[in-house]
């Protein structure tokens, strides 16, 4: 798996390398243009256009079935696993449409990682949970070092450093979810998609993960879907409100919560708060 000597055939790596050398890149981490997603005939996401700021936390809120998770999963092409799902429009990452026929979904997911609703570590050791993704992506550095630094980023190192060879499934739910975040960032992605990452956790574990996000956004762009509006208010810089597949309002979090422009946003927010 150590075939990284030759120049990369991954278009994203080429663009990212160019930008690191001082080339001008996109001002946004991710740009979505006219995104439409259907399950069979049912439109789940309708004509959504939005852009995500680099190294910020963006929250997507909305009632159940509003299409927020579906939209999130479209950003790294996870919806392709659902046979009836069809997607149109553009998702631009470094100016390249991830749905371009020349782009492999594997390349996309390597740069745009994902954390799921339920903690789902691999049924392997803690060490292997971190190392596996790095190894299959051709990581050539010191693996133990990577495991340690990654676990430190999610504030899990001190809790698990003595049981790295033990099963990840022996950890508590909150620890498992932090391990899943570590697993996602071990391959050094640019964007981290989080699909209701705390909905299966207790309040203390939730608080730990929320406080992590502040640190993580120094390195990664985070897009988090949540049904918990307080959480969106606490952790995010910008918030998008989805309703029945439409992007109703997208604004800095403070503005959206305290000064919503759209009546539907206001109803939703006040309904929940009131």
């Amino acid at each position, binding site marked *: 798996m150590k075939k990284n000597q030759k120049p990369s055939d991954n278009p994203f790596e080429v663009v990212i390398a160019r930008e690191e050398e001082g080339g001008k890149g996109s001002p946004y981490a991710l740009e979505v243009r006219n995104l439409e997603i259907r399950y069979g005939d049912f439109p789940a996401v309708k004509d959504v256009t939005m852009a995500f700021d680099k190294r910020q936390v963006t929250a997507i809120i909305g009632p159940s079935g509003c299409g927020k998770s579906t939209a999130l999963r479209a950003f*790294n092409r*996870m919806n392709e*696993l659902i*046979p009836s799902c069809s997607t149109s429009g553009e998702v631009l990452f470094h100016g390249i449409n991830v749905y371009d026929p020349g782009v492999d*979904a*594997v*390349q996309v*997911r*390597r*740069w745009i*990682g*994902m954390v*799921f609703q*339920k903690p*789902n*570590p*691999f*049924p*392997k*050791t803690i060490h292997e949970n971190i190392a*596996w*993704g790095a190894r*299959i*992506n051709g990581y050539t550095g010191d693996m133990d070092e990577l495991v340690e630094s990654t676990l430190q980023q999610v504030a899990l190192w001190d809790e698990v450093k003595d049981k790295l060879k033990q*099963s*990840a*499934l*022996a950890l508590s739910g909150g620890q498992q979810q932090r391990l*899943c975040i570590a*697993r*996602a960032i*071990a*391959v050094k992605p640019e964007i981290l998609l989080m699909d209701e990452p705390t909905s299966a956790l207790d309040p203390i574990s939730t608080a730990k993960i929320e406080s992590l996000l502040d640190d993580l956004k120094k390195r990664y762009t985070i897009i988090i879907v949540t049904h918990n509006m307080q959480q969106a208010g606490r952790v995010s810089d910008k918030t998008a409100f989805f309703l029945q597949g439409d992007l109703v309002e997208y604004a800095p979090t403070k503005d959206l919560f305290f000064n919503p422009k759209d009546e539907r946003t206001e109803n939703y927010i006040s309904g929940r708060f009131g």
Partner: protein
Amino acid sequence: MTEPRGSTDSIPAFLPRLDERTRKGERWKVIFLISTLLGVFFLATLLWSVVNDSFGYVILVNETDPATLSRDGVPLENLGSRGLLAVLEENLPGRRLRSLAEERPLEERSSEELLAVIEDEIINPEIMETYDLSESLFGKARILRHLEEDYPDGALVFRSWINRRFLTAAQSSVALHAGIRGAFLGTLMTILITILTAFPVGIAGAIWLEEYAKDNRLNRFIRINIYNLAGVPSIIYGMLGLALFVRAAEPLTSGTLFGAAADPTTANGRTVLSAGLTLALLILPVIIINAQEALRAVPGILRQSSLAVGATKWQTVWHHVLPASFDRILTGTVLAVSRAIGETAPLVVVGASTFLSQDPTSIFSKFTTLPIQIYQWTARPQEEFRRIAAAAILVLLILMLSLNAVAVLLRNRIRAKKRQSR
């Protein structure tokens, strides 16, 4: 029956009728128990009838009394090789001696082997009467009376029909000398070929169908037909094997293509290889279906989390899906292989040898298997062949059980490993 409560009010009443519901449940429970007991009963009956036939008294009448063969008062057993050779030379015609020497020079044989030759050639015991285990245990007086009246010079011997000689001897037309070595080896080689071909192909097919194939009409058609194939009678697979492996692929299955045929002049496709491949065809659909179900039982979130770190589909399948489902796949495969071991009909069609005194030496040898051998023996009228058939059934059952045991052990180890990492 309880009185409907609250019926005096206008509110609709509940009639719990708990007694009746409990009684109904109890009745079903008894039915389930009876079904289980029936199964146990039939299984026990089967085992008993096999064991019953495998052990028991036999009345033997010797052609030559061993006592007359002793030299200078030394009994046969203590004569040593040289003495035994002398006995052989005295009692056998030169023609027979020469043909025995042609098989293997007599001088090279150990005294035990010589003793066996003397027993077969000179003493030549003949089975006059056989008794099953229950008769032997509970009717010994009657057997003894029978012995005295009808066979005054006969000997009553308690015989285990399953014995070392039976396991190691080749096939013979005399039940007393017949063994299952050839059939046992044939079964082992056949089943090995079956496992080696059906297991990888079956899993590969299942992976394609579960993980890669799109849900379109063609693939649905294929899926349904694999289910149908699993239900096709085994004799039809025999016809397929005959047409495909024995006839069409004859140069390949007979070994002439590689110059590996045992005897080029009589080489044909009726070989161990054809038999193994035919059985592989037979159990392939079962293995595929089982593996498919095992793969389907792997939670989708495992695949997603693997893909989400940038794994390819193959990496996901190889590192996560297969390890998570392997214990189930193994269980299904063992069940299928057990079925293949016991198959008779397709092998009859493919051309199992009915009487084979040589062992299979390569995959291009003519073959026979335990079930074929059992079938042959049970079809004969003599009682002693029924006894050795029963003994062969015992061997087949033990072979099957040990195969299952190995698989269960393997599976438990995989499970334990999985649990450890849980």
